[in-house]
């Protein structure tokens, strides 16, 4: 694609959708991370001083923190072999021919439109969507909803931004939140004003550009008092990235009486380490729901969490993990009960096949500040063959005697009996297996927006074709 085309896309995006890619990028892509690179990232985006300082401070923290000695194997990550800031034009250097055959085939089978394929494969920097976004945008503007890229929000709403940024997930929270804080780019910023109900899901996919699905995106969401909204990101089709590290941070503040749902479906290509910190601060009478689907990547470590800091606050995590050949999905949830009468619910479903491994890792912490609180955890694992594995690491810290805590865990194999039953009705073995797997994750899938649910089931059918026989 030549420069002129890129410029066209940028212009139309700006007028149509109200955002664009940064205009000036003078950075030459360079591997590795130094203070100088961080300063350049910040300068190239014309950031205020406080952000440069924030980034550099975070970089110090990153350097001082050890790699986690628990969870999935991260020993193969080479931090000096990674591009930390790629300007938009660089991402377009990849050609369609370079995209792995496997990924192209999956696009074919899923029926992903060509324009979308090029975007998902990283051939195009932007997904030029004519979808309902512009009408949605008008609706949102009338209500006073802000839905921008995080970089833009920093420029347009500096005070609001600074008040909340880095407060729920401080840079020093963990090594990868520190890394993200140092080099973040892209992501979404959402503000829902008091009492506003957003009926349709806010879909990051509709206004996506390379950096939204970039390596180090940073998302900040504020749901003000009594508001209601649903944010959806990602897609079921595989996203090809030659960058092997994805370390995002998502911060959500749910103010009193508000309800917010955050849905993610990720299907990174199988070279990617997907290490994401997602956390919500849930205030009085507020509800936070994380719906999280992890299909792709080499390694995922992700534990969406809710800090229930106000009376009657409620947190929910519904997650599904799918680990195939060479994949380890180490996922779960964290619920910190820090106020009276708070409640949490975790439902985790995992499927492992072809040598894949799933782990459920969860923490429920009922602190002395949280009398009359309750929590329910259910984790179910389905193993499709003897090469695959699953394990659970549930941790419960109960420091309040009146707490009501339930935990249920099941591990099952696909029964020969069920396969035989379904095959006797004319379904092939892989169709029967697909049906059993789809049925197993149905409690999570039914919470997804329709198109995601349909695509996810189609993807599972495809996956099953190669898994039996």
């Amino acid at each position, binding site marked *: 694609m030549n420069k002129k085309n890129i410029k066209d896309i940028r212009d139309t995006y700006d007028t149509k959708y109200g955002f664009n890619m940064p205009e000036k990028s003078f950075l030459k892509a360079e591997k590795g991370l130094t203070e100088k690179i961080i300063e350049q990232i910040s300068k190239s985006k014309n950031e205020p001083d406080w952000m440069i300082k924030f980034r550099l401070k975070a970089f110090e923290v990153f350097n001082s923190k050890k790699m986690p000695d628990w969870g999935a194997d991260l020993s193969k990550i080479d931090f000096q072999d990674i591009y930390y800031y790629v300007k938009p034009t660089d991402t377009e250097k990849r050609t369609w021919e370079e995209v792995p055959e496997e990924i192209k085939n999956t696009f074919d089978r899923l029926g992903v439109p060509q324009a979308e394929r090029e975007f998902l494969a990283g051939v195009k920097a932007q997904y030029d969507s004519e979808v309902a976004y512009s009408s949605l945008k008008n609706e949102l503007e009338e209500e006073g909803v802000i839905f921008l890229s995080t970089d833009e929000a920093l420029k347009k709403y500096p005070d609001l931004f600074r008040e909340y940024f880095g407060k729920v997930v401080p840079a020093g929270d963990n090594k990868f939140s520190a890394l993200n804080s140092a080099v973040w780019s892209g992501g979404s910023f959402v503000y829902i004003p008091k009492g506003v109900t957003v009926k349709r899901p806010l879909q990051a996919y509709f206004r996506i550009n390379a950096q939204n699905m970039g390596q180090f995106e940073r998302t900040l969401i504020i749901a003000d008092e009594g508001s209601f909204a649903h944010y959806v990101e990602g897609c079921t089709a595989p996203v090809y990235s030659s960058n092997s590290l994805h370390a995002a941070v998502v911060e959500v503040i749910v103010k009193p009486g508000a309800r917010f749902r955050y849905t993610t479906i990720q299907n990174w290509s199988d070279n990617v380490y997907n290490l994401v910190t997602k956390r919500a601060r849930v205030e009085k009478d507020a509800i936070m729901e994380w719906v999280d689907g992890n299909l792709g990547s080499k390694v995922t470590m992700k534990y969406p969490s809710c800090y229930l800091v106000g009376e009657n606050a409620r947190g929910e995590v519904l997650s599904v993990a799918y680990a195939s050949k060479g994949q380890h999905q180490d996922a779960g949830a964290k619920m910190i009960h820090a106020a009276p009468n708070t409640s949490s619910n975790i439902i985790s479903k995992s499927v492992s096949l072809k040598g894949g491994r799933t782990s459920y890792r969860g923490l429920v912490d009922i602190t002395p500040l949280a009398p009359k609180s309750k929590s329910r955890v259910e984790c179910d694992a389905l193993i499709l063959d003897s090469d695959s594995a699953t394990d659970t690491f549930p941790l419960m810290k109960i420091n309040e005697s009146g707490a009501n805590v339930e935990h249920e865990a099941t591990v099952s194999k696909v*029964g*020969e*009996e*069920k396969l*035989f*039953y*379904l*095959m*006797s*009705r*004319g*379904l*092939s*073995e892989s*169709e029967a297996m697909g*049906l*059993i797997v*789809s*049925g*197993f*994750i*149905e*409690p999570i899938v039914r919470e997804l927006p329709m198109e995601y649910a349909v695509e996810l089931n189609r993807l599972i059918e495809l996956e099953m074709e190669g898994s039996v026989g």
Partner: protein
Amino acid sequence: MISTLEIKNLSAGIEGKKILKGVSLSINSGEVHALMGKNGSGKSTLAQTLMGNSIYSVIEGSAKINGKDILKLDPTERAQAGLFLSFQHPSEIQGVKVYSYLRMIYNKSHERPLSPKLFRDFMEEKMKLLEMDQSFSERFLNEGFSGGEKKRMEMLQMLILEPKIVILDEVDSGLDIDAVKIVSNAVNYLVKNKNSSVLVITHYARILKYLKPDFVHVMLNGEIVKTGGEEVASHLEEYGYTDSELKVSSPSNE
């Protein structure tokens, strides 16, 4: 449509133990055969072996549908060849909606798929025949169903698939008399409209009042020891399986 199931000298077993010992049986289109026998006589082994359950192994013999041996086929291919088995204990498949499942098996078994609207009409017609509430189509397949509901769901799948050859394994067990009538109606409907062949495996003569079998076979220790008309069933009803007449009249009695 002409269809036959021809079983010749079939022996089969489980874990090295021979259960079926040289069973031969032929069923033509539109015929209803009953296979009676006590628990453990090998009736269910015959049904499962014919459908291709891999825990049973065939020792010798053949089973042909329209001249084609099915014993080497996998269960999917046997179903595609027109065979249907109503399970004694149907599996519960969590999270799979009855409606979408039925539509899937319909489309797999028929040359022309139906539009969602036409399929729903087709399905609802069959559900009416079985006196099933429409709400069943929104439930998950057999999940939390009572024994009787599971049997009706088996019959519904049968009516959806319209198989050439039907084996009913204890379809009447656990049903009250009204349900037995409903199930029998469904089977008779298929025989009348599709000229299907039916093998009814049962303990009791009760269901045979409604199915009116053309032939009744009695199985004992893995062998068919007697074949006759409805009078065989009545005799069993009266005298039970221990009656000496069975053994006397058995050609292969030792």
